[in-house]
């Protein structure tokens, strides 16, 4: 077999008619018309129909062809012919031609596949076997079969195109691709690390990088000036549907630049990537400060494909008589609302009151939701009578209402409750009312994030990471108010409500960095312990620099409009962070653990409770979580001794009867005629009334571990 002569199935055109060709690939599907056998032959490029015709094909070839089954790997030789009029197949690109086979070689047979690979119907108008949805874990277990499907193959090819586009563009901009280590130290990204035990340094561990953050900044100190990497990153985070424990990010850093450089660079790059998927992004991208995003959409990653922006109406009600609003405003609260224009037909009184006000808004954390429908120039609502004409006029003007509009408003003493609940209602309504245009892409830069967030104990913590530059450097690290007013020089790229990436201008001044650590309450020693090697580098003339990271799996998934990021990754983990194909993660042999010095790890550090294992009273105190004072010990020793006597006696007199645990057995049963529902005591907060410590709507407890 001379594969050097092989041509691709999908590349044959009517111009090839009359040509003798050698094809190789897989049997996608076949149809037997009483001796006349049609086969869809598939390779990476596409599908072409090959025909075994007893009138023209040798008898032994036809006999061999009769044994062909789906996914057999074969090679054929034959002549390209036009199809007869009326037998063209619009489902495949080569649908106007076919290849009359003269020779057939079965390269490898296939067992019946666990699911159908074929995606293309053999005749016009027919469905294919492969159109039924297949369980995702089965697809992942036989991923190599799944990848034979044209759609999956297309995803990977286009992912490759997008990556190529990134490399070519950044190369042209003077960026150098540098690989940073996989076996490294834990970095301050905040998620859990994947650890790799060191055999040479038994008991010590490498961490897989959560991002190359520290290394890319060190590359800037190292004078590379413009660096990028399509870097694999690892985060051991809680499982969420569209998240992978390992993922690919475009990591990028540059020196002697400012925000505008990043915006221009990334907008151009993003536009090029989306163009691979045939999507034209309008430039320049919109920009929105974090404050504006929260004020108008309730989210720091706003979906701007539709309106439904918030309008603040707090000031309209400062003198209201409506008691609910009055109380909320007395407690320093606010009121915001959305005008859902022209939707009153779809949002009936019943839907607004019974679904949104009673069920949906509370599930988003709001205590309630006020609604008004505008009909015949009048507001219609269950509470409209409580508002004064001036207040209603104010609403009319503020929202610019017209007939058919629906106003919803959320009021709460807490600003964050108002924007969060209204933000979720905004998304819920947009999707329910079909206000989200399918083919629209709305990129936006979110800027000026708060540099710090307040912590429970009255301090502050970094919103991003402690190397993000603040918008001004004259702050007082001891003044919490001042710290909370700082904005960071960071930026997130958000498209259609999804954060594709983000980054910041970094701190390159040692003194500013020290002030930030001081604000975080980190002492000299602690800082040195955590970031010593990194900070040392800044003692040697670090250039001003900044950068960004883009989640490539997410970006590619959005460009190709796939339902999950797993569709654009060749061998992803499933939703429970396992790989059904290889069975990873798996247990390992004891010997392997021993070699890595992992067997006696537990003994080295005391786990909670270890210290209590020796003394019998300490042990009982620990298992029952009841402490005792030193002077109670003699009493407890006595009762333990008595318990021992009782236990001995019980064992001695046990007998052979079946044990009983109650004298009046109860059959499991349901309360008749009742359905599961939240307790009213939970809803009205009374369950919390006897709690020693409460925060918001929750019981407050100590941290689980130190």
């Amino acid at each position: 077999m001379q594969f050097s002569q092989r041509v691709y199935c999908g590349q044959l055109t009517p111009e090839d008619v009359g040509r003798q060709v050698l094809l190789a690939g897989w049997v996608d599907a076949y149809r037997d018309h009483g001796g006349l056998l049609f086969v869809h032959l598939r390779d990476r490029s596409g599908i072409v129909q090959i025909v075994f015709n007893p009138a023209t094909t040798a008898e032994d070839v036809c006999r061999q062809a009769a044994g062909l089954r789906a996914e057999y790997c074969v090679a054929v030789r034959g002549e390209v012919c036009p199809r007869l009029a009326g037998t063209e197949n619009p489902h495949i690109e080569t649908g106007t031609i076919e290849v009359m086979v003269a020779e057939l070689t079965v390269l490898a047979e296939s067992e019946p596949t666990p699911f159908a690979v074929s995606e293309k119907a053999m005749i016009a108008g027919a469905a294919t076997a492969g159109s039924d949805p297949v369980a995702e874990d089965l697809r992942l277990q036989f991923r190599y079969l799944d990848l034979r499907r044209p759609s999956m193959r297309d995803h990977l090819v286009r992912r490759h195109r997008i990556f190529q586009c990134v490399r070519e563009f950044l190369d042209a901009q003077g960026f150098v691709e540098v690989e940073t280590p996989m076996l490294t130290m834990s970095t301050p990204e905040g998620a859990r690390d994947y650890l790799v035990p060191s055999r040479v340094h038994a008991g010590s561990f490498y961490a897989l990088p959560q991002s190359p953050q520290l290394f890319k900044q060190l590359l800037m100190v190292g004078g590379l000036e413009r660096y990028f990497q399509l870097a694999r990153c690892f985060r051991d985070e809680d499982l969420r549907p569209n998240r992978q424990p390992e993922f690919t990010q475009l990591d990028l850093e540059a020196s002697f630049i400012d925000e505008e450089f990043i915006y221009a660079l990334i907008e151009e790059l993003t536009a090029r990537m989306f163009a691979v998927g045939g999507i034209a992004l309008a430039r320049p991208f919109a920009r929105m400060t974090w404050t504006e995003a929260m004020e108008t959409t309730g989210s720091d990653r706003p979906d701007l494909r539709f309106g439904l922006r918030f309008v603040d109406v707090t000031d309209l009600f400062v003198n209201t008589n409506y008691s609910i609003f009055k109380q909320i405003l007395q407690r320093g609260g606010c009121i915001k609302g959305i005008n859902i224009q022209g939707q009153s037909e779809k949002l009936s009184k019943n839907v607004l009151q019974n679904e949104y006000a009673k069920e949906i808004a509370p599930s988003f954390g709001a205590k309630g939701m006020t609604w008004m429908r505008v009909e015949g120039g009048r507001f219609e609502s269950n509470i409209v009578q409580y508002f004064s004409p001036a207040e209603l006029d104010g609403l009319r003007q503020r929202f610019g209402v017209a007939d058919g509009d629906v106003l919803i408003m959320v009021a709460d003493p807490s600003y964050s409750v108002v924007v969060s609940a209204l933000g979720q209602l905004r998304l819920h309504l947009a999707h329910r009312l079909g206000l989200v245009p399918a083919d629209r892409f709305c990129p936006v830069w979110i800027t000026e994030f708060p540099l710090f967030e307040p912590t429970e104990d009255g301090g502050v913590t970094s919103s991003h990471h402690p190397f993000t530059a603040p918008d001004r450097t004259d702050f007082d690290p001891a003044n919490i108010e001042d710290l909370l007013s700082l904005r960071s020089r960071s930026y997130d790229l958000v498209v259609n409500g999804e954060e594709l990436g983000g980054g910041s201008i970094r701190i390159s001044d040692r003194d500013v960095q020290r002030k930030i650590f001081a604000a975080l309450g980190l002492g000299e020693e602690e800082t040195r312990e955590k970031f010593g090697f990194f900070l040392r580098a800044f003692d040697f003339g670090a250039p001003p620099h900044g950068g960004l990271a883009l989640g490539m799996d997410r970006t590619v998934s959005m460009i190709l409009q796939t339902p999950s990021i797993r569709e654009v990754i060749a061998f992803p983990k499933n939703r429970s962070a396992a790989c059904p194909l290889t069975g990873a993660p798996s247990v390992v042999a004891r010997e392997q653990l021993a070699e890595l010095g992992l067997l006696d790890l537990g003994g080295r550090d005391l786990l909670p409770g270890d210290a209590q294992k020796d003394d019998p009273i300490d042990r009982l105190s620990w298992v029952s979580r009841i402490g005792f004072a030193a002077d109670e010990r003699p009493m407890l020793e006595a009762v333990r001794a008595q318990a021992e006597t009782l236990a001995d006696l019980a064992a001695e007199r046990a007998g052979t009867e079946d044990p009983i645990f109650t004298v009046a057995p109860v059959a499991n049963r349901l309360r008749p005629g009742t359905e599961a529902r939240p307790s009213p005591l939970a809803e009205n907060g009374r369950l919390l009334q006897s709690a020693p410590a409460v925060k918001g709507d929750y019981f407050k407890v100590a941290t689980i571990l130190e």
Partner: protein
Amino acid sequence: MEELFVHRPAEATASGNGPLHGMKVALQPNCSVAGWPADAGSDALADFKALEDATIAGRLRQAGAVLCGTTRMSEFGFGLHGSRAGEAVRQGAADAELVLDLMGESRLAALRASVFGFKPSYGRLSRLGIIGLIPSMECAGLVTADLEVIAKILDAVAGADEMDFSMPAEPAADPEDGPIDPSRLTIGVIAEALQGLDDDAQAGFRQTLAAIRETGATLLDLSFPEFSLFPLAHQVVGAVEASSCAGRYDSVRYGRRAPGAKNWNEMYLRSRGAAFGPLVKSYLFQGAYFQFERYGAFEAACRIRSRLVARMDRLAAQVDVLALPAVDLAGSGNAASLGDTYARFGATLFANVTGQPALVLPPCPGTGGAGLQLTAARGGDGRLLALGRHLFNGRGGKA
């Protein structure tokens, strides 16, 4: 002297106008009445206020009873140390008092106050809203100076409660009455139940039996060789259940949080260590011991319990009623110690192990403080009360 009542409502009213109209009923602060303090005598529930009425509290009110307050109780009602149960009735401040009976508390409180004490059959009364410690053994008991009051209250509050999952679905209780023919009445006496009584009490109890014989009833001597195992079964099973039951006192949903805990475990250790008094703490440590170190002993105790219940059922089936002494066996030692607490209730805790109803009649003068305790098969509450009335009247209604 501390106040007898720990809580008295500003305005005590009934919500209904039923058969208990005007009756004053005192509760313990382990019985939930919406808005009332309900700490069950423990710091583990310090400042806790009940959110809803216990089923039996609601039914009392609906039947016309006036809930007149809660009386001082021992921690979780376990034992009588620090409890003032019985006094409200003795002083006439209440017509009846509900006293949780875990090992005989309602009956010994009645004996102490020289009034009637009754522990209904396990499963007759809803436990919803009652803060307890030993779920498979405890039951709200009644203390009152008038036997009729017991029957009336039982009528008003007993019976199925679909909100209480632990209630067995059992057929309605026995017919209460039916004529009592004194000459055909057989009363069983368990010889082993007299062991452990001092001479005075033994003599007093025999005197009581002699008086019963004079009413024409036949006394039948019965043997229960393993009677002495009741305290063992009670203590092992009870300690384990208490340990599980007290797991909820976490200083999160209620109680007091001990300051300074650095983490969750410390929060538990400190808060729970400070919450429980010495008696309950001792009991919980024993429960932890049986659960975590000698689970086999717990199972053995459940086997023994199974045998004790079966034997008691057989004896009860042979007679109309069983007569046992009711004695407060309080020793001279530390009344708050676990050992002494169990010793004290030696005459009553059998009924908690078996779930039988038990009625204590006040002792006659000159009977050495030994009252008469009548018991029957579980579920025979009505008949037991009727026979109790008969025997009490037979001795001339003398307390």
